[in-house]
């Protein structure tokens, strides 16, 4: 897969014109900040070769199919939730992380003990000094 971040951005684009990308038709590309992070993580990992895009796509197809086969009647489809689940599936499948580690870190971020059996986390929270904020407030959807 060819990389894209270093590609020249091309001609300047009008932000308000009729063809203005990609918020035209009044629609944001990402509904919430975490969606953009999940999107970019998958693209970056496919680009660097931790997995192939086709492998990720297969997991995404499976996650979407699973949601469509079984979900609460009142639950709307959330594409990037399937995307995130597929990303976790794929990362775990590579052996780079295990699911429990992600559970634990998520729980840490939520400010609560992770559970009963995992008292020995050796990880700190420093060292990720990139300045984005996903916000820790659980989304209502």
């Amino acid at each position, binding site marked *: 897969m060819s990389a894209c971040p270093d590609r020249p951005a091309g001609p300047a684009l009008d932000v308000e014109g009729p063809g203005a990308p*990609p918020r035209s038709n009044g629609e944001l590309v990402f*509904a919430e900040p975490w969606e953009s992070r999940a999107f970019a993580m998958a693209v970056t*990992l496919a680009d660097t070769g931790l997995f192939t*895009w086709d492998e990720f796509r297969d997991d995404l197809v499976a996650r979407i199919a699973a949601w469509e086969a079984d979900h609460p009647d009142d639950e709307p*489809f959330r594409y990037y939730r399937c995307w995130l689940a597929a990303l976790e599936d794929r990362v775990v499948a590579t052996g*780079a992380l295990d699911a429990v580690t992600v559970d634990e870190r998520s*729980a840490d971020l939520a400010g609560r003990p992770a559970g009963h059996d995992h008292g020995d986390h050796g990880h700190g929270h420093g*060292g990720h000094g990139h300045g984005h904020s*996903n916000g820790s407030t659980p989304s209502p959807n």
Partner: protein
Amino acid sequence: MTDAPSDRLSPALRTEALEQLLVERELVDPTVMDTFISTYERDVGPLNGARVVARAWTDAEYRAWLLRDGTAAIKDLGYGGPQGEHMVVLEQTEDVHHVVVCTLCSCYPWPVLGLPPSWYKDPAYRAGMVRTPRRTLREMGLEVPEGREIQVWDSSAEVRYLVLPRRPAGTDGLDAEALAALVTRDAMVGVAEVAAP
């Protein structure tokens, strides 16, 4: 609710956790992620595809090339990258109306259209366009004449489709730049026509 699992299942938290862990293991570089995001939020969108369409409307040779080898002709205008490796361009005619869907996972030609809108990803669109395309198009505001065949193209693992809409009447005096401004994303997916100015 009792065990408060909702926070642990919150996608925002899980995403943040995943990113932290991958960054700590030096498997992702957050600045590379930032670049991808800004690229697709700011730089890459339907205007790229609109320029391809406008070029095809004003340059017969380019149009022929585009229909024969979409990937190369699109790359020639500088648009390439993930999800654009294998492009096929579908030409709208009097006899056939093309419309694109990805029934399985919402594949979409990012380099020319940016990231897909929510309706493209919605189960109702993905299922409806395959089962009852004429009705689904009507519900989206496009009445396809009865005599015109509708061909639904389901994106495969490899191929991404771009629809080349019909040039609207009354635009003979417009140059490519003015024409590009008329072309909408929806027309390049095949759920709309390009309206005359």
